[in-house]
Structure formats: structure tokens, C-alpha cells
């Protein structure tokens, strides 16, 4: 086989060799066939005895040499074809590829038709997504994501502008009983304030009563209980 850098023999010379080898092989095959015909014409009583034919009378070494040459010639076509292939792969095809405008060819290919022929669903069915996902290291992916950069690209105002706040707010208000909260807090505050005022007034009552009772020199505290007695 020719080395990648070796140009090898010219193509015309290889073709001539191929033809001569084939013709030589055919001649030798014919000679062998004739020898077989002449030896099988009169069967011998003793098969072990060497048969004597006109062709066998030729010098034996010369005949063997011719047969061997024929055999080699019979193998010659395969060898020659291999060499031709080497030449094609080494020189012709690269030269063809160099002259071809692959971009033009690709432009002529209707990729959409190719895609249409592909049964994507079938492909997807064959893919074991669980296995694929299992192999993915999510943490590594997350570490690589620059969240600040992503957020920097987001136009928050545009995003908020798209949100229909009305229904969202209405839903939130429906979920939260604002009236009850306001009532509860107001009632609680009002009750605490009123309670404080009541107790302060009670203290003032007690203090003032003590002062007045002292001034009036009453020896006993006031009787503030309700009973059936007539008020004095």
C-alpha cells in the first residue's frame, strides 16, 4: 500500500500491469485445463502409476514454474485493485474534495426536509432522561451561574409593568380580613385606653374622698356598697 506522502506508480502503468497479469493468469488456467483433459481420457488400472500425457512430457520444472506464475497472476487482480484504491484515497479523493465547494453543496441541502424525516418522538423515547439527569451535577451548574449578572439583565420595572396588580391585590385582600384586623386592633387599643382612664379616675376618687373625709373629720371610710338602705 502507498504511504500517505508517496505518490506511487502512475495510474496508467498500474492499469497496464493489471491487464497483463489477468491475461497471463488466463493462459495458465487454460494450460491446466488441457493437462487435466488429457490425463482423464484413458483410465489406468493402477491409479498410483504416474500418467503419461503429451503435456506431461514437457520438462517438469518448466511446467511447475508456469503454474506457479499463473497462480500469482490469478492473485494479481486483487492486489492491483487494492493499489488502485490506495491511489484513489490518497490523491484523487482529496483533490476532488479540494475542488468541491462544500458550502455551496450544504446550501443546496434542504435541512428542513431532513429534519422532517426524523421521528423526534421516537428519538426522545429512546433517551433515558432519568439516567441523563442523574449524571448532571446541579451544584456545579449553579456555582457557574452568576445570579447577579442574570438579575442585572432583568428590567424589573418592565416586569412589574406586566403584572396586573389589581386582581392580585384583590385576591390578597379577600384572603386577609383587613376589617377584622382593624376592628380587633382598634378595639384593643380603645379598651386599654379606657381601662387606664377608669383606673386613674378610681384612684382620684379614692384620694379625693380621703381628703374630704379627713377635712370633715369622719372617723370611718365611705359606705359605697349598694343595699336597700336609703341613701343619706
Amino acid at each position, binding site marked *: 500500500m502507498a504511504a500517505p506522502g508517496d505518490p506511487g506508480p502512475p495510474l496508467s502503468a498500474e492499469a497496464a500491469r493489471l491487464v497483463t497479469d489477468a491475461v497471463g493468469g488466463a493462459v495458465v488456467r487454460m494450460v491446466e485445463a488441457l493437462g487435466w483433459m488429457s490425463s482423464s481420457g484413458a483410465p489406468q488400472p493402477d491409479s498410483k502409476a504416474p500418467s503419461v500425457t503429451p503435456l506431461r512430457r514437457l520438462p517438469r520444472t518448466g511446467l511447475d514454474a508456469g503454474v506457479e506464475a499463473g497462480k500469482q497472476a490469478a492473485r494479481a487482480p486483487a492486489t492491483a485493485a487494492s493499489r488502485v484504491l490506495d491511489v484513489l484515497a490518497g490523491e484523487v479523493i482529496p483533490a476532488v474534495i479540494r475542488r468541491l465547494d462544500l458550502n455551496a453543496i450544504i446550501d443546496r441541502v434542504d435541512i428542513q426536509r431532513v429534519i422532517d424525516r426524523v421521528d423526534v418522538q421516537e428519538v426522545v423515547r429512546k433517551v433515558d432522561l432519568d439516567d441523563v439527569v442523574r449524571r448532571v451535577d446541579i451544584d456545579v451548574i449553579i456555582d457557574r451561574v452568576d445570579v447577579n449578572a442574570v438579575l442585572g439583565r432583568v428590567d424589573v420595572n418592565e416586569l412589574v409593568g406586566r403584572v396586573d396588580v389589581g386582581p392580585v391585590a384583590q385576591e390578597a385582600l379577600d384572603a386577609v380580613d383587613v376589617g377584622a384586623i382593624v376592628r380587633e386592633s382598634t378595639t384593643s387599643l380603645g379598651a386599654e385606653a379606657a381601662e387606664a382612664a*377608669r383606673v386613674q379616675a378610681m384612684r382620684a376618687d379614692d384620694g379625693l374622698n380621703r381628703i374630704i373625709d379627713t377635712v370633715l373629720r369622719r372617723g370611718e371610710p*365611705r359606705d359605697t356598697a349598694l343595699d*336597700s338602705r336609703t341613701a343619706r
Partner: protein
Amino acid sequence: MTSVSLTARARAHQWQRAGIVSRLVADVIDIVFVLVAGVVLLALVAGVRALFSHGFHFLTIPQPGRGIAAGALLVVYLWVGWGLNGRTVGKMTMGLRAVQADGSDLSPTRALARALLYLLFPIGFLWVVVSHRNASVQDLLLRTAVVHDWGTRHIEV
């Protein structure tokens, strides 16, 4: 002051006759409430009149009609409050209740008489200061009383 002492003082005063300070604060609240209610009433009347005239003119009542109307409004307010459950807005705020001397509810007649007496002889209220049982002149005449009642009638003192 802790909440425990607050509660203890409040519990000790339940259904006891109230002193002058508690009652005075409640009465001041009542008077302010009646004044505001009177102004609102006048505005309402003026608004209704504006529907049938060319402009809004605040209603002005010349004396003595103004005083009579104010007195009538106060009497009606006190009568309704005491007659229904012994409470006006001021007494409700201060946790007080006007009752008969034995603790029973005021009858409508006694409530009206009490309101009229307070309008005609308001100075009688000051007897509470010196009364041994925290009673005003009106209380003595009508056998009524004003007690602390925070809405816990069955509280154990």
C-alpha cells in the same frame, strides 16, 4: 403599676358607688358628645334645606330657642341612655352605670326624672363630694346611684 394591681383595684370597685372624679369625667364626655351631636344635627337639617333652596346656610336658632333645643337634646340623650341600660356614652367609656339604690335597672320614668333634675339643678351633682355614700342630690331624691360596672356583673369581690 402592674396589670395585677390594675385588675385588683378594678375588681374591688365593681358595683361600688363611683366617686366624683369618675362621674365628672363621664358627664364631660356626655356633654361633649351632645354638643357634637347637636352640631351634626344642625348640619343635617341645613343639608336637607339646601336640597330645596339655592345654597347651603348653616342653621342658626335664636335664643331662647337655642337653649331650649340644647336642653331638650341633653334630656332626651340622658333619658334614652339611662332608661335603656343605665349607660350613656360617657358612662360606657368610664365603666359606670346608673341604677336604682338597690342595684336594679332604672325605670324609664325615673330615668326621665333624673335627666330633668340634672338639667334644672346641675349643682346638685356636687353633693357627691361630701356625701358619705357618693350620692348626688338627684340620687338622694330619686333613690338612684351610679356604680362601677365594667360589664362583669357576676364578678366576685
